[in-house]
């Protein structure tokens, strides 16, 4: 087929792709939700139970579906426990960044205020600031726990949402229907929830999905570096870190959590990409 230059993007193909991405992302999400709910019942083992008789068992259908680790702990149980941790941390951080960024973005959309100017400045800087480096420093100071990871990642990444909200809210506040509502003395919170937020939702939903993927990677990376989760806790980052000593004798220790992280990130990316295409 020859290259076609200058034609508009094939919208039918885009729409088909959007549906495909949303459906496959949705199915993956349903499977993950099921795993999350069934959780402990599925593996029949305690994620922290040490069984030195059965160290580094290869995956088998009899007892340990995904094998055991260097202390004989069941890998499936640890994987499911890690899923809970990862989802909580990533969701918490995403929602915190979303809430903070949206509120500050709305304030920044009001051009005349001094606070708005300050927020715009911070947002402009944060765009090219290595926030992860800051996150590492902060978690190291504050100490490692689930709450710390959520707080630090959320409070360090809010400018992502702030920038988008500020740009879109500025144009929304200039619309006639919003100005009319304002002239009718509608209160700020009501104005926001009735008229501005619905207009922001499409781009925010896309951003939420992609940000969730980023937070998932950041959380597991922190935990991998030994900074995020408490040592020894059953998280994917910790599992990856522990697998490094057994790369030759037990490669499944690496492959199991690696596959899990990639699947979860791809699910979020599928949903985000599908939503974006669908809304365009």
């Amino acid at each position, binding site marked *: 087929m020859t290259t076609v230059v200058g034609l508009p993007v094939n919208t039918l193909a885009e729409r088909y792709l959007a549906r495909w991405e949303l459906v496959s992302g949705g199915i993956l999400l349903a499977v993950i939700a099921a795993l999350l709910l069934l959780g402990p019942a599925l593996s029949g083992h305690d994620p922290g139970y040490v069984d030195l008789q059965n160290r580094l068992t290869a995956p088998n259908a009899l007892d340990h579906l995904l094998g055991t680790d260097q202390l004989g702990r069941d890998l499936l149980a640890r994987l499911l426990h890690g899923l809970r941790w990862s989802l909580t941390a990533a969701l918490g951080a995403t929602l915190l960044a979303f809430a903070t960024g949206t509120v500050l973005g709305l304030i920044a959309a009001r051009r005349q205020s001094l606070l708005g100017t300050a927020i715009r400045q911070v947002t402009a800087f944060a765009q*090219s*600031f290595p926030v992860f480096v*800051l996150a590492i420093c902060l978690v190291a100071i504050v100490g490692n726990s689930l709450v710390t990871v959520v707080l630090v990642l959320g409070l360090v990444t809010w400018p992502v949402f702030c920038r988008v909200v500020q740009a879109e809210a500025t144009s929304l506040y200039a619309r006639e229907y919003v100005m009319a509502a304002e002239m009718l003395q509608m209160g700020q919170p009501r104005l926001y929830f009735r008229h501005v937020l619905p207009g922001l939702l499409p781009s925010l939903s896309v951003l939420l999905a992609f940000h969730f993927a980023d937070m998932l990677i950041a959380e597991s*990376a922190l935990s991998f570096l030994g900074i995020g989760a408490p040592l020894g806790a059953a998280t994917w980052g910790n599992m990856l870190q522990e697998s490094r000593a057994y790369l030759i004798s037990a490669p499944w220790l*690496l492959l199991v959590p690696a596959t899990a992280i990639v699947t979860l*990130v791809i699910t979020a990316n599928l949903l985000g990409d599908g939503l974006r295409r669908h809304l365009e």
Partner: protein
Amino acid sequence: MTLMSLRPVRDLAVLLLGTLTLLFFLLRLTGDPALVLAGPDASDQQVAVIRAEYGLDRSLPVQYLSYIGNLLRLDFGRSLADGSPALRKVLIAYPTSLLLAAMAMAVTLLISVPTGAWLGARRHGAARIAVRWLLFVLQGVPGFVTALLLVQIFAIELVWLPALGSSGLSSLILPTISVASFLAPKLTRLIEANVAAAMGSPYVRTARAIGASDREILWRHALPNALLGATALVGTQFAFLMTGLVIIESIFAWPGIGWLLVQSTTSVDFPVVQAITLTVVVTVFAVNTFVDLMQRRVDPRLRHREPLAPGVAA
């Protein structure tokens, strides 16, 4: 000198002051910094020495002013690990990181520019769909997972390449591929979008009307404009690269500032952490400012726009 050229300097000063102030107060909010600075195994006497040495027995405003004063003289104190000046330790590791960053950036550009241009110019075909899916999957694999898999395959199973350290060219290969593997998909999609947009623009239509070939249109007209647009996001990409370096360097024990950062955070070597933060912020800022200035020079349309152009959502 006009006011315009002083603006980056002011911005950098504000940025540095903000970041280091944040670190200062957080360190004091979370407990006794003398305990943190001295480390978990220190005796009471050692803590007292640290407290006196850092002036932690004085009031908070006095402490803050002397902290800022020390920073202005580039005095970050001494590393708690070996007693050498913190900044010097960082500057020794710096070129090692720069080498890896430059290599990774070169590989990324070698992959992203041709692939992005090809994807952006092409609208149909099985090959295009296959490449886009490959990119999509690659984008879902975190850099450190790629790195671990590469180590497993090339260092453990095949024993072709070293898994650790920075001895010679062969030890540079795996870290470079790891960093490039998470930079390239993003950049490729960015270039693709920019090329696709350029392909639909009036000047391309004009070029087509006067009889330019597909190849000429893509390489002579669309791609240069698309790349110019893509460089606006270099700042975001560079911050991203810094993040990647931190993790990839610690996996490969590559003795750069990323590796040093993780080493010093886990051992609570706070003077070094502060010096690294400063170095990273200054580096990213310098790259951004440089790119901004270069863009203005190359593209006359940008000369009258506000500095630090607002970026597109990545």
